[in-house]
């Protein structure tokens, strides 16, 4: 492994670069920014709910509150989870498949630069439609131009994802080094391949729905507007046909990262590579058979509900196989709990809770208790904030020395880990209880009774603790980039493992 002396490069050179490592880093910086500012919105929401009534007034009115949770959700899913995964993919895939760059570097840069545009539309518009934008609300009541800006913002982000996905698929399948069979590539490569294929199948449906939503808003069509003979439930089918698979699109790259971290820090090979591949492929296929489990309460027939329940349950073994694979890999390993591994294991624990809760949602009669209550908020946050964000943070620490040439502060990272693990558990496990008590989601206020107040307060304190962890995270990244100890580049974590040539930078053409 050749040690390259890091010279700071001028900013414009990185900004206008089409090199995969630069574009990858741009993705990472942008998504980390989104994570922090989107997180600030979440803290505002939780703080407002610390007490019922007017006792706390950091969010002045319900409309502002609705706008805040809409932008929070949209931002976290489409500007944190998706771009971060693309960023790491950009950085690593060419290295892992041994090609000099992505297949189409310019297209790659274009896909990236669409994201700030979408981001600006979403943040400047500040819509109040919720991230689901269900009609008829989103067509007959939601104020413009915010709703239009949301629609165009998502449209642009969707196209960006599709372009990025095409690039990944071609890079992996066509540009892969001829000596490297697909079944010898890293599981992270598989995760990116599978995610990209899912994006291409899933997203066009929602892209079409967005156009219909827009023309409905203009009043020239009435696809989803009952006043014009349309059907709002049709939108929900189109929406969830994209977004149930999309939840796996959020999940799978994080799973791929866990497959990089867990064997390394357990100093053992993966328990079963084949099982990992099989679980990815299985999830990608079966994940398309369950979308309407979000719609049990829209008035579906018993048969429809049954079909989608079976489809949802059928996707569970794949996730369970990943968990098994990780635990079996750690079993009997000499585990080193450096920050990347701690976040991976913490994510694994939260993943388990989340999956168990998901099975409860799936059982038809129980879903009528959990649906649209705080339970659902707890459920999916255990995935997106628990497993996925934990895996991402672990991976940031893992890549940190290779990207900056310096070491982050392990002490600060471990303090951050414990704050976040405790905080996230407090926020989202209690939200399950809130849901069972009957607190609806997306409410600016709740009934002032003792059990609700207590649970909301635990949840809010958890949010503050998590925020403290996030502050340490940002501080650690900035401080260590500037003045961290130089990393031992051949084995920064002192685990005696082989690494990919992460510092490689092939000249362009």
């Amino acid at each position, binding site marked *: 492994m050749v040690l390259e002396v890091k010279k700071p490069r001028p900013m414009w050179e990185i900004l206008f670069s089409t090199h995969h490592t630069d574009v990858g880093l741009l993705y990472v910086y942008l998504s980390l920014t989104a994570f922090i500012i989107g997180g600030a919105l979440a803290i505002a929401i939780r703080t407002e709910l610390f007490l019922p009534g007017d006792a706390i007034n950091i969010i002045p009115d319900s409309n502002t509150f609705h706008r805040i949770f809409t932008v929070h959700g949209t931002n976290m899913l489409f500007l944190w989870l998706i771009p971060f995964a693309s960023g790491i993919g950009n950085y690593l895939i060419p290295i892992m498949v041994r090609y000099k760059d992505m297949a189409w570097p310019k297209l790659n840069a274009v896909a990236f630069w669409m994201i700030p545009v979408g981001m600006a539309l979403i943040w400047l518009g500040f819509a109040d439609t919720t991230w689901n934008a*269900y009609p*008829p609300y989103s067509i007959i*009541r939601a104020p413009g131009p915010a709703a239009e800006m949301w629609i165009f913002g998502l449209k642009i982000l969707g196209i960006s994802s599709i372009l990025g996905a095409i690039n990944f698929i071609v890079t992996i399948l066509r540009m892969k080094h001829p000596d490297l069979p697909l079944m010898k590539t890293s599981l992270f490569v598989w995760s990116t391949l599978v995610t990209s294929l899912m994006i291409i199948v899933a997203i066009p449906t929602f892209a079409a729905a967005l156009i219909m939503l827009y023309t409905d808003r203009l009043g020239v069509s009435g696809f989803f507007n009952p006043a014009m003979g349309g059907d709002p439930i049709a939108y929900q089918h189109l929406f969830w046909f994209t977004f149930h698979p999309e939840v796996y699109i959020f999940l799978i790259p994080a799973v791929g990262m866990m497959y990089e971290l867990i064997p390394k820090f357990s100093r053992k090979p993966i328990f*079963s590579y084949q099982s990992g591949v099989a679980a990815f492929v299985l999830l990608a296929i079966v994940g398309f058979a369950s979308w309407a489990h979000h719609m049990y309460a829209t008035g579906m027939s018993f048969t429809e*509900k049954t079909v989608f329940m079976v489809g949802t349950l059928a996707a569970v073994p794949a996730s369970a196989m990943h968990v098994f694979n990780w635990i079996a890999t750690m079993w009997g390993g000499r585990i080193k709990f450096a920050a990347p591994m701690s976040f991976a294991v913490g994510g694994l624990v939260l993943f388990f809770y989340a999956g168990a809760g998901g099975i409860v949602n*799936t059982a038809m009669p129980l879903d009528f208790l959990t649906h649209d209550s705080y339970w659902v908020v707890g459920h999916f946050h255990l995935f997106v904030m628990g497993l996925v964000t934990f895996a991402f943070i672990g991976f940031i620490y893992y890549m940190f020395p290779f990207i900056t040439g310096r070491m982050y502060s392990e002490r600060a990272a471990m303090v951050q880990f414990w704050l976040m693990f405790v905080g996230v558990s407090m926020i989202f496990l209690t939200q399950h209880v809130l849901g069972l008590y009957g607190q609806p989601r997306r409410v600016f206020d709740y009934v002032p009774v003792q059990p609700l107040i207590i649970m909301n307060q635990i949840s809010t304190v958890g949010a503050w603790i998590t925020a403290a962890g996030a502050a340490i995270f940002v501080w650690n990244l900035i401080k260590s980039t500037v003045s961290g100890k130089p990393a031992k580049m051949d084995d920064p974590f002192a685990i005696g493992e082989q690494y990919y040539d992460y510092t490689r930078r092939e000249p362009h053409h």
Partner: protein
Amino acid sequence: MGHATIEWVYVGVVIAILVYVGADAWNIERLLEHAPEDAETIKVTGAQWVWTFEYEDGTREIGKLHLVKGQPYRFEITSVDVIHSFNIPDFAIMMDAVPGRINTIWLVPDQSGEYLIQCREYCGLSHYQMRGTLIVEEPSGEEGEANITSAAVEAPSKGATAVAS
């Protein structure tokens, strides 16, 4: 390798649990599908941001729903503007109110008292305040206020019983 065997056993156990959950859910949901024959039909209409109830005899109430303990009811739920969701948490009643559609759900209230009715689907400005009260009365001849004393004791606000049970 003994590798694969352990994993197959594990996957088998997971599938067995899922089959059990699925079969049980199917069985229960099947029983919940059809309202009893003699149920009284009540039309429930959601509008930003109130619930309106129309009884079989044509009388209407806004924000209040009076039922009799032990009687079966069938709700026909719809909306006049955006999607709402008709929810009585204490009786696990929950069904979307969708404009242009009529969804049905049924209930036999088995306890008298006052209970919270709320909207569970985001519907705009006052979604969080789209609440109502379900009043379940004892079936005996005398009607009205006299029968709800037991619940009123610990129900100072209309939502107070939401989490009490």
